[in-house]
């Protein structure tokens, strides 16, 4: 078994075409698509200029937090420079944090804190203002909330409205008067989950894209390596294997490990590449774990295809039908619960990736069931040819 494993490793290393397909091309594609998506991410960002007239702790912190937000490209400058940028249409708007910003917030005065300048007809700047105010300015939000609640809920009950107003004001005033609470509240809003969601869309897209590219090349590498095992039969190498003490079980397990291990290694390198160059926050260990199980499972599935179709041409011709079968099995699985909805549903990539990282234990269990079925099928279909083939 170890001999077969080492043989497959060696065959993969010495096969330039396989190396190119399994290792070099995916990295190039990952690099190109990663950079392209990064650029489209840049295009989605809004450029704004901020002028900090107050230059207080709160304004500095606020500007810092806005700059960190991936929705904006923030250019800090004086008003004159900012105005020039605005006229050149380099930015969407100028946000002037007016003198007395911190002082006014502390005493609960929440109006006229930030002055916005934008070109006539530019509707992005007011929208940006909304984003900044709703996400970064606790005070403005509280004022807004008060008005909305007054307007909608207590519209027809003036007593309740009055009661709400006094209690709300009391609370807001208390918070604002206490210096210790002002900044943490603002900071807290900046790090809110809602904001993260908005920012992570592009990242999610990049992550899915990268994972899909890796998956496509895993499939290619595994299929190509599996097809290569047919050479054993076509050149009658199998007679030598059969005449030794190598049983069909050992031969198959050796093939499975020999095909999957190099693909697992190259995938690991690709994931590390993604982590270092494209998506720093990707959970490499988790991805690797999922990919490893998938690679082993898909290797057995590929060997099953090879056993059934025998020639490379037949397998290639059958690939569209395989995808179709997976779709059909997926919908059957949803209805009659024979096959797991997580493993075969919606799309082939969902099937491969446990459907958006759902419950990992359930997914693993299903994947193991599938793998066991594939393994039994491989042994059953291949044994006959190994044992009784026409040599």
């Amino acid at each position, binding site marked *: 078994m170890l001999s077969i494993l080492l043989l497959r490793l060696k065959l993969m290393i010495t096969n330039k075409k396989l190396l190119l397909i399994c290792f070099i091309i995916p990295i190039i594609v990952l690099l190109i698509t990663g950079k392209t998506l990064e650029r489209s991410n840049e295009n989605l960002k809004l450029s704004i200029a901020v002028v900090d007239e107050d230059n207080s702790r709160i304004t500095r912190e606020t500007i810092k937090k806005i700059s960190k937000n991936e929705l904006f490209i923030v250019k800090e400058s004086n008003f004159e420079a900012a105005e020039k940028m605005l006229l050149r249409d380099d930015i969407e708007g100028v946000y002037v944090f007016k003198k007395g910003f911190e002082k006014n917030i502390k005493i609960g005065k929440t109006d006229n804190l930030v002055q916005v300048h934008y070109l006539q007809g530019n509707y992005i700047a007011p929208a940006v203002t909304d984003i900044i105010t709703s996400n970064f300015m606790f005070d403005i939000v509280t004022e807004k909330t008060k008005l909305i609640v007054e307007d909608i809920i207590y519209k027809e009950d003036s007593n309740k409205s009055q009661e709400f107003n006094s209690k709300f004001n009391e609370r807001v005033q208390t918070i604002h008067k206490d210096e210790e609470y002002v900044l943490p509240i603002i900071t807290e809003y900046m790090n809110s989950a809602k904001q993260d969601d908005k920012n992570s869309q592009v990242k999610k897209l990049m992550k899915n894209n990268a994972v899909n590219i890796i998956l496509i090349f895993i499939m290619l590498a595994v299929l190509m390596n599996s097809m290569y095992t047919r050479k054993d039969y076509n*050149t*009658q*190498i199998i*007679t*030598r294997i059969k*005449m030794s*003490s190598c049983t069909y079980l050992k031969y198959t397990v050796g093939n499975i490990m020999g095909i999957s291990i190099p693909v697992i290694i190259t995938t690991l390198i690709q994931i590390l590449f993604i982590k270092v160059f494209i998506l720093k926050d990707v959970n490499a260990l988790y991805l690797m774990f999922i990919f490893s199980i998938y690679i082993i499972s898909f290797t057995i599935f590929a060997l099953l295809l090879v056993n059934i179709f025998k020639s490379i041409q037949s397998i290639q011709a059958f690939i569209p039908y395989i995808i179709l079968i997976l779709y059909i099995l997926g919908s059957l699985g949803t209805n009659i619960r024979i096959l797991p909805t997580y493993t075969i549903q919606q799309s082939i990539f969902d099937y491969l990736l446990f459907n958006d990282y759902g419950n990992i234990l359930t997914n693993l269990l299903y994947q193991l069931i599938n793998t066991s079925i594939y393994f039994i099928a491989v042994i059953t279909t291949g044994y006959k040819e190994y044992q009784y083939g*026409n040599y």
Partner: protein
Amino acid sequence: MEIIKLEDISKKYKKEKVLNNLNLSIESGQITGIIGPNGAGKSTTLSIMADLIPYDDGKVTYRGSSIKDSKGKIGFIPQEIALYDSLSGFENLKFFASLYGIKGNKAKDRISEVCQYVGLEEKIKSKVKTYSGGMKRRLNITAALLNNPELLIMDEPTVGIDIIARNNIIDILKKVNKQGITIVFTSHYMIEIEKLCTYIIFIKNGKIVEKGKIDEIKNKYSKSNLEEVYTLLNNK
């Protein structure tokens, strides 16, 4: 003393009967050539001798015991070049040696020994795809000698190579035989059979039509060479 014996062997592929109550025995130390037209059942006979395929009826014994006990004692050289051409000759031999449990320094020593034997030491580190047809054939034979077999079964070992390479292989096989290894092989080249074999078996339609020492058969049919005997038997 007979090394391998086939008794009343019958074999069908689907509905077609390939071997029909075939009886033959191979004497130890001999070089036996199995000849016959295409589709006569030569390759099937060899595969059954090597225990590669099952048979429908009959019995195969190796030195009086079941053929199943012969594992590791028989070397088989298929008609195809059963090698990985993207690997070097050495890597191929190392892999085949490992299948027989010959590993590490023991494998290196054995590879070097057999390579010297067949004259492949120089190019053994080169990839098989860079070898000439004759060299590939020699390496194909080398791989079957790694486990030091008692019986070497070969299915057309010289097909597709030039006369010089073929003569080279004949010399190697004579050397192998001198080491005490029994050889059974098939070939369509009668000159090669005459040069190498002491005994021949002519198979046609899954049955033995003629067998015996080459000179005796030639005398029996009053022919000067084996090719004429072959043509006569084939047209019979």
